[in-house]
């Protein structure tokens, strides 16, 4: 380990002796004097990140469509569940099965439309 360290120091010394550490680059005259004001001009001109409200407005029709599709899925799932499992299955189990199926369909629809719970809650609780 010490040998490797010594080798590295020798190699580094070789580069320093040969090239040095001086900065060979230069900048146009007065560049640093105006740099801060130029940067701040770009910062001031930069767009502010889009507010979250705007995205909700854009998503609103999509969310209404998602809600309708989900309602349809739940209705179909509930109908199929009740009609395929007649009197032998207790009502509580049928309701539970229908609810799970409905939730799965809802999740699938939400994933497909790339909306999350927050978006849906925001839409449902908005004034529209």
């Amino acid at each position, binding site marked *: 380990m010490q040998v*490797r360290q010594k080798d*590295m120091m020798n*190699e*580094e010394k*070789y*580069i320093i002796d*040969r*090239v*040095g*550490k*001086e*900065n*060979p*680059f*230069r*900048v*146009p005259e007065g*560049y*640093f004097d105006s*740099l*801060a004001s*130029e*940067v*701040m001009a*770009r*910062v001031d001109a*930069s767009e502010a*990140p889009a507010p979250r409200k705007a995205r909700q407005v854009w998503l609103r029709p999509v969310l209404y469509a998602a809600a309708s599709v989900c309602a349809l899925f739940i209705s179909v799932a509930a109908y199929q569940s009740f009609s395929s499992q007649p009197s032998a299955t207790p009502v509580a189990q049928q309701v539970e099965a229908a609810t799970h199926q409905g939730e799965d369909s809802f999740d699938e629809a939400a994933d497909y439309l790339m909306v999350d719970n927050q978006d849906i809650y925001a839409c449902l609780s908005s004034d529209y």
Partner: protein
Amino acid sequence: MYSDEELSALLRNPERQRKAFEAVVQQYSEQLYWTIRRMVLVHDDANDVLQNTFLKAWNGLSAFHGDSKISTWLSRIAINESVDFLRKQKSRMAMSADEDPGLANSLMADPYFDGSETQALLQEAISRLPDVQRTVFQLRYFEDMKYSEMSRVLKTSEGSLKASYHIAVKKISDFFKSHD
């Protein structure tokens, strides 16, 4: 001139953050410029990358909680932007049909490069290193940055950074020996 702690506190105050950011730009722009310039080599490119660095910092101000030093946070953005720029430049050059005159020759023709031929060759040797070795070499050799600080900037262990520096030094000295 504000202290790092004062600036950190001001940056988190929405009413004063623009003024504080202006002070950050004034205090750190020259230091960051040189870090970027050593990576991208050409003045106009360094200027573009520096402006993008500050824009990224401004737009990501909410992610800065003051747990690291302002210089560490800005250096990290500057290095990421520089590496990103170099990757894009490399892929542009790979697609270009123009003949590459060699980096050392390009530098010798650059009006903002005052170095000798040997210094231009060093820059060519550095440019051939992989991104991490290139970055570590620049920060250690030219800026004398401590491994502990470099570890915070690059989010890499000190051991790994030391190994990268050793490999970079070996490759560069081999490059020179092969040119003798």
